[in-house]
Structures are given as structure tokens and as C-alpha cells.
């Protein structure tokens, strides 16, 4: 959910209850910081004396846990906002725990409670903003936000729905792709899949190399239809499923299967899975393949055979061809050679 909502007109104060319906209707028509309004929280307006920001999160600078606290509130965008004034970051010794250090007495109780939520539910961030104190000295959390650590799903008894990151619910393909890895820990395939507005289907390899290649595709003017990656030597079936999901998108102009020189992912197996998927979809558009690693020579022999038999428009490149240069080849094949 977007921060900076107050500034973008996402927080409205009404004087009388009769205005509520109209104001809510107006909110639902709005897009706040590129996110469509789907839900509205109605709460009592609190008159307060003091306003604070309070959060727990992890910091790469201290390589550990930090408390972020100070005077602020809605003017502070989020913990990660460097411009935030009067906000300090305090390292916490995770082996010792947090006992209310560095916050005023009146806020210790709530800070410790937030800490308990943060650790118990394996959060990456637990934030109360604004945290206010009224005239009677009562403490109110007017808004709050948590980011959960997905890697701790296995020990969290409460299951939460997927977050809507793109300001929209997850697409059918996103949901289907994420199912591929469920209950099968052999490699990672489709756990990360995002639909994008372009027309070049992408099946990329490696958590690092995939981003390098996406950078290159964008730089050459290619428009990706999706982002997805696979890594850790996934089996053939997983690649077949992923290929079918990626290529189910209408209006594609090309498909790019790209990766670096793998350490241990079996290139023959993963490309066989890709071919299994292609055989069902039977695409006519150009398919650019660049890959290296264990059994790559065998894989390329197989691809040449398949291309002949099934008349796929394959353009095959091995480790001798710079990985990112195939982004340009893909773009030119998909859109025509517009540069010349």
C-alpha cells in the first residue's frame, strides 16, 4: 500500500457524518500514487498533542535489526525516507531483545508490543505512523503497516493473502506461475512472475542474471510481456508448466529464453522442459535462446533437431555470444530492424 497518502489526497477529514457517503464515493474514484483505491478505512479523528513515527525493521548498514523512532507522523513518508527529520535509527541487539530503550516512558508499552508482533510474525517491517498521544495522555496508533518475510511462511500459523503490488489484484498467470513451486523444492520456477504491459515473452534464468538481461532488453527498446526467472536446477516439468503460462499471453511478438553460464543448472533438462511447453503452444513468432552451462552442447543439438521437425523459428546462441547482446537480437526480430 502506498505511503505519502495524506499528501496525495488519500486521507480526508469530515466534519459531519452526513458527508461520509459522498466522500467515500469520491475516494473510490481516485488513484493514489498509481494505486487504485480498493478499500477505505473509516476511523475517529483524534485530536492529539504529540505525533511520532515508530518502526522495527532490518538495516543492511548495521547488518541487523533497528528501531526507527522520532517526532514525525504523516509528514514522514516511511522509515526508508532519508529526508525524514527528527527521526533516529537505533541498532537493536537481536540476541538481547528490545525492552523499550530509546523511546519515552509513555510509549514504552506500545513499542514493546510492536516488537513482539515484529518478531512473533516474522516481519521485515512493522511500523506505526502516526503514533499519537492525546490531551489525556492516551496513546493511539492512527495507522500502521507491516511487511511480512515470505521466507518464514513455514512457521507462521496465520496465512495472509498476496499483496497487491501493482495496484491491482494478481493476474491469472501470476497465480498459476506461483503454484509451480508449491510442494516441490527442486529449484525455483515461477515463484517470481509478474505480468507486464509489453509483447516479448521472457523466460530468464538466475536471480541475478535475469535482472541484468531485463535491463538490457529495456535499454534496447524491447517491451517485456512478463518478468519471470528460474534457478537452482529445476526439473523439466517445471519449465514446461512455466513455458505454457508465459506463452498463454495473447499478442506476443517474440519469446526470449535467456540466461548466463550456469554453475549447476542442467541446460539440457531445462531447455527440454521449454520445448515440451512450446510443443503445446506451437508459437510462430521468433524465439531467441541464449544459455550456457552444464550439458549446453547436447541441449543445442536437441534444439536444432526440434526446430527442423516442428518448424520453430529458433535463434540459438551459446556462451560465446554475450548474453545481453541477444536482447538487441530479440528486439529486432520481434519488431523488425528499426535501427537500420
Amino acid at each position: 500500500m502506498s505511503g505519502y497518502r495524506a499528501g496525495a489526497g488519500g486521507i480526508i477529514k469530515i466534519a459531519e457524518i452526513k458527508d461520509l457517503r459522498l466522500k467515500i464515493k469520491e475516494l473510490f474514484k481516485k488513484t493514489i500514487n498509481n494505486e487504485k483505491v480498493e478499500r477505505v478505512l473509516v476511523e475517529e479523528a483524534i485530536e492529539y498533542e504529540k505525533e511520532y513515527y515508530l518502526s522495527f525493521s532490518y538495516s543492511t548498514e548495521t547488518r541487523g535489526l533497528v528501531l526507527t523512532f522520532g517526532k514525525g507522523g504523516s509528514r514522514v513518508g516511511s522509515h526508508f525516507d532519508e529526508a525524514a527529520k527528527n527521526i533516529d535509527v537505533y541498532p537493536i541487539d537481536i540476541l538481547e531483545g528490545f525492552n523499550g530503550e530509546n523511546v519515552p516512558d509513555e510509549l514504552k508499552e506500545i513499542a514493546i508490543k510492536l516488537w513482539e508482533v515484529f518478531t512473533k510474525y516474522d516481519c521485515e517491517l512493522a511500523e506505526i505512523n502516526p503514533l499519537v498521544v492525546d490531551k489525556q495522555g492516551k496513546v493511539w496508533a492512527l495507522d500502521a503497516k507491516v511487511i511480512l518475510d515470505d521466507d518464514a511462511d513455514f512457521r507462521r500459523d496465520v496465512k495472509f493473502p498476496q499483496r497487491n503490488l501493482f495496484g491491482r489484484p494478481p493476474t491469472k498467470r501470476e497465480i498459476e506461475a506461483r503454484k509451480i513451486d508449491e510442494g516441490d523444492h527442486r529449484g525455483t520456477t515461477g515463484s517470481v512472475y509478474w505480468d507486464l504491459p509489453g509483447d516479448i515473452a521472457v523466460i530468464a534464468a538466475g536471480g541475478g542474471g535475469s535482472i541484468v538481461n531485463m535491463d538490457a532488453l529495456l535499454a534496447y527498446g524491447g517491451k517485456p510481456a512478463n518478468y519471470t526467472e528460474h534457478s537452482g536446477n529445476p526439473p523439466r516439468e517445471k519449465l514446461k508448466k512455466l513455458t505454457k503460462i508465459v506463452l498463454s499471453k495473447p499478442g506476443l511478438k517474440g519469446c526470449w529464453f535467456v540466461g548466463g553460464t550456469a554453475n549447476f543448472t542442467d541446460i539440457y533438462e531445462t531447455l527440454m522442459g521449454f520445448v515440451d511447453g512450446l510443443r503445446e503452444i506451437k508459437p510462430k513468432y521468433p524465439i531467441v535462446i541464449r544459455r550456457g552451462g552444464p550439458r549446453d552442447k547436447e541441449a543445442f543439438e536437441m534444439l536444432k533437431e526440434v526446430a527442423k521437425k516442428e518448424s520453430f523459428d529458433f535463434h540459438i546462441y551459446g556462451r560465446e555470444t554475450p548474453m545481453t547482446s541477444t536482447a538487441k537480437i530479440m528486439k529486432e526480430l520481434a519488431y523488425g530492424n528499426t535501427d537500420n
Partner: protein
Amino acid sequence: MAILITDKTKVLIQGITGKEGSKATLQMKNYGTKVLAGVTPGKGGQEVHGVPVYNAIAEALENHPGINTSFVAVPNFAAYGAIEEAIKNKIPLINILTEHIPIQDTAKAIAMARSTVILNPKGEGSPTNVGISNPSASLRAGKLRDSSLIAQNDRVRIVGPSSIGIISPGIGKVGSIGGDDPRGVYSKGSVGVISKSGGMASEISWILTKNGLGQSTVIGIGGGILVGSGFADLMEDFEKDPQTKALVLFGEIGGTYEEEAADFIKSGKFTKKVVAFISGLFAETLPQGTKLGHAGAIIYGEKGSYKSKIKSLEEAGVIIAKTPDEIPDLLKVI
């Protein structure tokens, strides 16, 4: 001489009877690495590729006191227990392959490793260790245990989690790096490589090898938010290593490890040539907070952005490669 993995490296495999552990064991032995023992609770007495298996690290150490490196290849839910056991047994170098370890567990492991003093080869802690040799010792609540008082080489070091491994070509390797046969991709030479990505460690080493540039040591530090060893931590070792003449960094948006490397160079602590390749412009086109394969490649606000990393590295005199294939030429030009 290389760093971290030398001819003195003697390895313990945690999770040796698992698929990844057993596979890496064979690969490491085939590459000439000394693998002395393995641990899987409840499976003591077995052998995996000729390596004896024990129930606990203490037992393995009794029989093989020379062990100085542990490779962790256990499932994510068991990782914290395994790492804690290695730290308590003061194994100087712990390389973690395991992916998807909860960040809370990684944070605990890093805190514990940083405050755990190992004995130097003379059998004594260094003088700076006095008074903080107890792993649980810490300064008063609200402050970090002052691990900065302990020299890096005197405390337990973690490389990873989600690390592809460490290879010193021609000498040995720990982890899955290079797969079954690293020889085609990795070659011995004078360029150090530190990479947030395992695949890019391989791709960059291949590009170097293809252009006649061998490597001293190649390290996959992992792409998570918290890592045991960042760029700067390892640059300290590369600076001292006479075999290493230049360094290649593969970084990504998110976090502050690249900025830390830039500060390390600016402070005069690293004097060798550095070429860096930073990726992630694509990720910056997505909504903030979008999760990609590397948990660390995530942006909130301006912090950890592509621009911030390139700016600080350039200010430190680091040469930025626009594509991985430019790296060899940039290393050659002085």
C-alpha cells in the same frame, strides 16, 4: 595465495546426506578440496562419497580437529540450528548455500558470529579480544555488541546465505560454484570476483577466462537483504592478497553494500583496481517493494537505488561496466 579457500582449507559439510550436500561433497572432492567430515543428526556412522558422517559437529571435530570451514546445505527451517552449532564450535568460516532462510534467523546468526572469537593459529585470541571472548557477552541493552573491537579475522565469518560458494581456481572450492567441473569456466589468475549472484559469478568468470584473465578467488555473497560478508568485508582480504591485482564486483540495486564498498575505497583501505557492474534499472521500473528473486534487490525510497550506487562507486574511482562483456577491456586499460 588467494583468499578464504587456500591449500589449508579443510571442510565439514552440514547436511551431507541431503541432495545438495551430497552433490557438493562429490564436486568439491573431485576439484581437490579436502572434505574431512559431514554432519547430519541421526545419520552418524554412514559415509557419503567416502566422507564419514557424524551426528554432531563436536563429534566431527574430535575426530578431525583440522576442520576450519563449514559448508551449510540444510533446508531453510533447519538452517539457524545448523549455523548456531557451527558458530558455537568456533569454525572460522561458514559458507551457507541454503536459500530462503527467514531474515530473523539470518540476523541472529550474523550477530552471534560477529561476537564469537575464534583462536588464531598460535592458539590465542588476539589482544583486542580481551573481555569479550564470551559469545553471549554484550554491551548494555540498546546498543550493538561492540563487534568492531574484534578484528575480522579473529571472529567467525559467514559467507551467505544463498551463496553459490567460494572458489580459488586451481586450489579448491566450497559449495556448488562451478558445478561438476569448474575448469572450463574458472581459471587461475589475478582477478578477484565478488558477486551478489551465483549465475553472474559464473558468467563474469567465464568472460574473464575467455579473455585470458584468470581469477584468484571468486565469491558468491548471496543476494539477500542481510549477508554475513559484504563487498567491503572481503575487500579487506583481497587487499592483503598478493595474488590479487584487480577486483570485479557484481552488485544490484537495494541495500547499501555497494555504497559500503565505495566508502571502504574512499577511506584508502583498498588500493587495487576495481571494475563494477551494477544491475537493476528494470527493477526500478516496477512499483516500490516488488519482490524479485533476490530478496535484497528491493527498493524503498531513494536508498539503495541504481543512481546512488553508481554515484558513490564512481566517486571512489571505480570503473563502471555497462555490460558484463566490457569488463575484460576495462580491467586491461589503466
